[in-house]
């Protein structure tokens, strides 16, 4: 029996009568993590991993009907045993393990296999059927080591400081920004953040994740010399806006897995691209799939066709699941939120 099927509202568990990350309002929604394409408003009851509660409330409203579950703890619902396991993607991200009549399915949501210190590390869960994402499902995607990337960001910041230029680093406000803050060398200079980033920093700090001191960029006067030493974290939407004018001369960069490709970086029009992703790279996807021991793999958002074909050639029973997460079909064109 299929424990998860694709329905117009989202991924649905028939015996349990609930949805996982539905994109249309439903009665019961299990949320793998707080990114906008997975956690939507309008559902009647929410269930998410305990460390993700703060995020979900800050994004969907304090008033949502939210039940939380510590990682690894099992609950029963209509005979389905459900537990949540770290996905290593962002704070509170979880894989959903479902067990019913001896059959085990795991829906991974989005995941990253390399630990980063800002959220619980990915934990492989044995199952019969694994639902995997495929955002970076091409063998060209192999991430450089995090240490190298942070060394690169620090060197870029330091060199801009020496030239008296602000360093504006664009990144998604939830997850990526906190991961960068966690990995930076805070002794280089002051760290300023855009208004979209600070509320999420607060949630991370409350959850016990160490982040260096940050200041709201709007509080710094326009011509303050401090700006020329500063690193500024801002969401991509701030690029080209009048908000940027306050920094005078600056160098800009973008932190994303998509920056691995020269063409994508040049299309962004930024000086530097730092290859930092919240998702598994190609070897990471294959490793995670192998670790589950699953014989059946359902592939969602990203390079669906590529991964399905590759896994089938490796002898697995792989199929596509049509979802509204990220962007279907080919990757990179629209660079979905990571």
């Amino acid at each position: 029996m299929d424990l998860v099927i694709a329905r117009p509202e989202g991924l649905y568990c028939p015996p349990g009568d609930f949805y996982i990350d539905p994109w249309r309002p439903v009665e019961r929604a299990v949320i793998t993590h707080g990114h906008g394409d997975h956690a939507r408003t309008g559902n009647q009851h929410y269930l998410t991993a305990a460390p993700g509660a703060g995020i979900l409330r800050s994004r969907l409203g304090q008033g949502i009907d939210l039940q939380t579950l510590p990682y690894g703890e099992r609950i029963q619902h209509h005979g389905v045993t459900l537990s949540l396991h770290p996905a290593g993607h962002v704070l509170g991200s979880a894989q959903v393990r479902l067990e019913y009549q001896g059959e085990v399915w795991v829906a991974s949501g989005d995941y990253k296999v390399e630990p980063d210190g800002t959220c619980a590390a990915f934990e492989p869960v044995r199952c019969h059927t694994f639902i995997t994402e495929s955002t970076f499902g091409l063998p060209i995607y192999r991430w450089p080591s995090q240490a190298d990337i942070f060394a690169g960001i620090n060197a870029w910041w330091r060199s801009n400081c020496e030239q008296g230029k602000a360093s504006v680093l664009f990144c998604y406000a939830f997850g990526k920004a906190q991961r960068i803050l966690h990995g930076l060398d805070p002794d280089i200079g002051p760290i300023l953040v855009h208004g979209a980033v600070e509320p999420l920093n607060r949630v991370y700090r409350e959850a016990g994740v160490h982040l260096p001191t940050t200041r709201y960029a709007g509080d710094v006067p326009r011509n303050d010399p401090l700006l020329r030493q500063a690193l500024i974290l801002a969401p991509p939407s701030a690029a080209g806006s009048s908000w940027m004018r306050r920094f005078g001369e600056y160098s800009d960069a973008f932190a994303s897995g998509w920056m691995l490709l020269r063409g994508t970086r040049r299309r962004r029009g930024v000086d530097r691209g730092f290859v930092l992703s919240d998702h598994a790279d190609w070897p990471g996807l294959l490793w995670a799939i192998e670790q589950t021991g699953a014989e059946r793999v359902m592939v969602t958002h990203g390079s669906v066709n590529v991964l399905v074909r590759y896994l089938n050639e490796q002898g697995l029973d792989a199929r596509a699941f049509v979802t509204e997460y990220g962007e279907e079909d080919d990757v990179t064109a629209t660079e979905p939120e990571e």
Partner: protein
Amino acid sequence: MKAFAELYLRLDATTSSNAKLEALRDYFAAAPAEDAAWAVYFLAGGRPRQLVPTRVLRELATALAGLPDWLFEESYQAVGDLAETISLLLPQAFHASEDGLAHWVEAHLLPLRGLPPEEIQRRLPPLWAQLDRPSLMLCLKLITGSFRVGVSKLLVTRALAQLAGLDAKRVAQRLVGYTDIGHRPTAASYHRLIAEESSDEHSQRGGQPYPFFLAHALQAPPEQFEALLGPPADWLIEWKWDGIRAQVVKRDGQLWIWSRGEELVTERFPELHSLAESLPDGTVLDGEILVWKPGVDAGVPAVQPFAVLQQRIGRKTLGKKLLADAPVVLQAYDLLEWQGEDWRSRPQHERRQQLQRLLAEHPLAPLLLSPLLEGNDWGELARQREQSRNLGVEGLMLKQRDALYGVGRTKDMGLWWKWKIDPFSVDAVLIYAQRGHGRRASLYSDYTFAVWNAPAGTPDRALVPFAKAYSGLSDEEMRKVDAIIRKTTVETFGPVRSVTPTLVFELGFEGIALSKRHKSGIAVRFPRMLRWRLDKPVDEADDLASLQALLV
């Protein structure tokens, strides 16, 4: 190799000319002359002939990466550049090679040309295994000939000039022909680029042409010309010829003809060889090579369409019939050297006057003087410009009376404007799309356009493809079009998708001719998208008849 790869990364990491200039200076200051020689060659646009057949490279990379062919192809389609794709797929290595760029090119890469595939496949893996990813990508770009990094030849010239304390014009002149396919850069040729000025510099230059001075496009409406340009009397005004820009160099009893790409094309144009006798030594002319058939028919211009010239360029041998069917002349419009003296620092009108005198005094058969146009005001000239299409020219050239002859697209020594006629345009329907390269990698950005084969209302009429275009859209428009293509895909053949026709674009092009090679029977020149006709339903796009009407 590593130092050059670091330069590449620095150049690639900025859009500021000053930062690029600094990176170039730092590199050249530290690089051994033999490496610098090759760096100049590649940065200035030099490309050796293809070193390794693409197929061999792909097979080898696919095998080394341990991937099925289709997955390599998917990867390539996402990256849009073969060298970059391979560098992302090969096993990663620590950088182990201490050898410089010259050693890599001369000892490792150039000898690959012409080797049997098995030998190439034996030699490349141990070479690649010595390079870290940036160096590997660069090495592959040198192999595939796709090295490009957003540095103009002018910028290289400026960096070398600053480093050597020379005038940039001098360096530019020495650089002419440096990237010619027959030239092999050496430490000595690099030293010559940056050597101190010498007194015999002039006599040593052989058949070297001068760097071409290029015009800027004039896009303002004619009503603004008076304010922008002053009165027409400040300008020398000519037709804009549609041929091959060329310099004819006559020195020491010998003749050289150079194209704008700084390619030596003397052998291609035997009609002009008589100039070796008729032009005095120490003469350099700038002009346009055109196929010229006067008096064939009254009212038909003597200048033949560029397509005729193009067919001739494509031929390996120039037979009698071809020479009779498509004879060329040089429409001369500038004099760069006279009696062995560099005239580029004299004003335009003075050069023109001497050119006129030269042509009046010498009976020079294949040489014509590009005539000057007169007009009391810009309105009058605008009316003459309307005649361009009938006369077989592309519009007008405006040359500042006092302009010196600059280097490339400079503006500091005087100005040339090209005031081109508006392109032809039709409203066409997007029917196929393919992913692009470089900045457009993995976006559906290269399109095939079609028009209807019958007027509106005809039952069962169909769309016939007639042009491909990929330029003219803003990044944002391209993203939107890309999304629509993905949503409206009907079929995928390899990298190409056919789509349900929903998108109409106004397509501009410079020329139109009958063609047997195209399904539509028509070929257009320089097609590009002028704008996205969001207001136009597919049914209202143009038909073949509207294209045929432009042929007359």
